[in-house]
């Protein structure tokens, strides 16, 4: 039993290292890209909404960053998920090992980059004369756990189905873009007009992304948001696992 756990740990560690090496092979800035990307977006949104459209939100730059960094983790993992199995053809076709470990490695890789980007948020807090809250110590692990489960489950669905319907790659890109604008990331949930509040409840990422921002900016966690986002994660986990179990034995044949 113990050696079985050790095997899984090693398997995921080795695959995560591999992902890191492959993703940033021959790039000069390497993982700095994972910070540069959301920062660049923050700058663009700042210019568009604060400078040009004059949105009435204090410390809008900080506001943007607190939402864009966790989002970046989500969108990176989910958008690469359709190609995870496709990018590992030579090992899937030749070795019998738990295929979902490849996905765990991908999500873990992006999670590590997210953790490495938290100091940037701290820096921005200091620039605004604020400081991190002690509640981060339990808040970050809780939210990361929920988000990890959510991303892993969605990736499991998407990557498995994509081997049979390759359209999913485009579709995922489109849907995550929609989701981005329908989730309160560049605007606060309070700005959604009454008739459209339903949008907030049906986009699965809203409670999670709002929780991240509240945690980073105010140091608070809303238990209802936590429960709802955990519920979404579990729901997707069940769906994802069912799909994976139904399809995974065929992976080596269709690749």
């Amino acid at each position: 039993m113990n050696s079985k756990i050790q095997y899984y740990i090693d398997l995921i560690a080795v695959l995560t290292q591999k992902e890191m090496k492959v993703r940033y092979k021959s790039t000069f800035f390497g993982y700095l890209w994972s910070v540069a990307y959301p920062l660049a977006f923050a700058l663009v949104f700042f210019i568009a909404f604060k400078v040009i459209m004059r949105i009435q939100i204090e410390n809008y730059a900080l506001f943007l960053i607190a939402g864009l960094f966790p989002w970046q983790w989500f969108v990176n993992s989910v958008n690469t998920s359709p190609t995870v199995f496709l990018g590992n053809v030579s090992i899937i076709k030749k070795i019998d090992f738990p295929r979902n470990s490849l996905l765990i490695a991908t999500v873990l890789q992006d999670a590590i980059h997210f953790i490495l980007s938290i100091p940037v948020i701290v820096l921005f807090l200091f620039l605004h004369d604020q400081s991190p809250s002690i509640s981060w110590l339990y808040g970050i692990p809780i939210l990361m756990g929920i988000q990890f489960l959510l991303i892993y489950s969605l990736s499991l669905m998407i990557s498995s189905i994509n081997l049979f319907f390759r359209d999913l790659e485009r579709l995922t890109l489109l849907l995550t873009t929609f989701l981005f604008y329908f989730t309160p990331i560049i605007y606060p949930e309070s700005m959604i007009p009454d008739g459209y509040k339903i949008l907030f409840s049906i986009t699965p990422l809203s409670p999670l992304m709002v929780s991240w921002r509240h945690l980073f900016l105010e140091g608070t966690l809303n238990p209802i948001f936590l429960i709802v986002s955990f519920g979404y994660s579990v729901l997707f986990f069940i769906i994802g696992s069912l799909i994976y179990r139904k399809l995974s034995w065929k992976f080596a044949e269709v690749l």
Partner: protein
Amino acid sequence: MNEPAILFDRVSKSYHLYHPMTGGIKSFLFHLPEAVKILKNSRYEVLKEVTFQVGKGESLGIIGRNGAGKSTLLGLIAGIIKPTQGKIAVQGRISSLLELGGGFHPELTGRENIVMNGVLLGLTKNEVFQKMDEIIEFSDLGDFIDQPIKIYSSGMLARLGFSVVANLDPEILLIDEILAVGDMEFQKKCLKKMMDFKKSGATMVFVSHSMENIKLLCDRVIWIDRHTIKIVGSPEEVIPHYV
């Protein structure tokens, strides 16, 4: 023969010939009735009711024409593909060398690939590190071991692949005719290693088009023809019919 390491009980394997789904959701949905019909009817049976066993410590050779289903058979033993019908039971840790570069990632170096491959095959990282020197020495790749394997020649890939699987102390070794691309010296080295295996009591299944090697290594040979086993027997019995 003692307790079997590999057991096939009326195993059949068929593939769909045509995958309408890879044409995308649209073409699948627009031609749904036809697509489903094609999907159901166009099965190509590669293996039909194949039954055999391999005892612990036995070396089995598999011969047959191109496309006969030899690689499919190895894939079934390795558990990478599942049979359409029938039962397969395998006992022991498998190490398999099914294709050039199989189990490797082209962007990683030889050394990194050794670790990944070893762990994927079921060892812990520590176990792989303990065998690292042995593997690298056997492969005789010199400084290339720290180069990404995408720049390797096919012979070099075969060297790396064989060195890994051969030095991981598998209980069952599956080899699919990759030795042919190695040079004379390396082929000799591999054959010697496989003889040692035999002596150490490991089970081996060996696909080859080289009758010489089959004679040298195998206790028994299966000739696959027309989706099923045509003859089983000692190399001396089977090979004259095949050739």
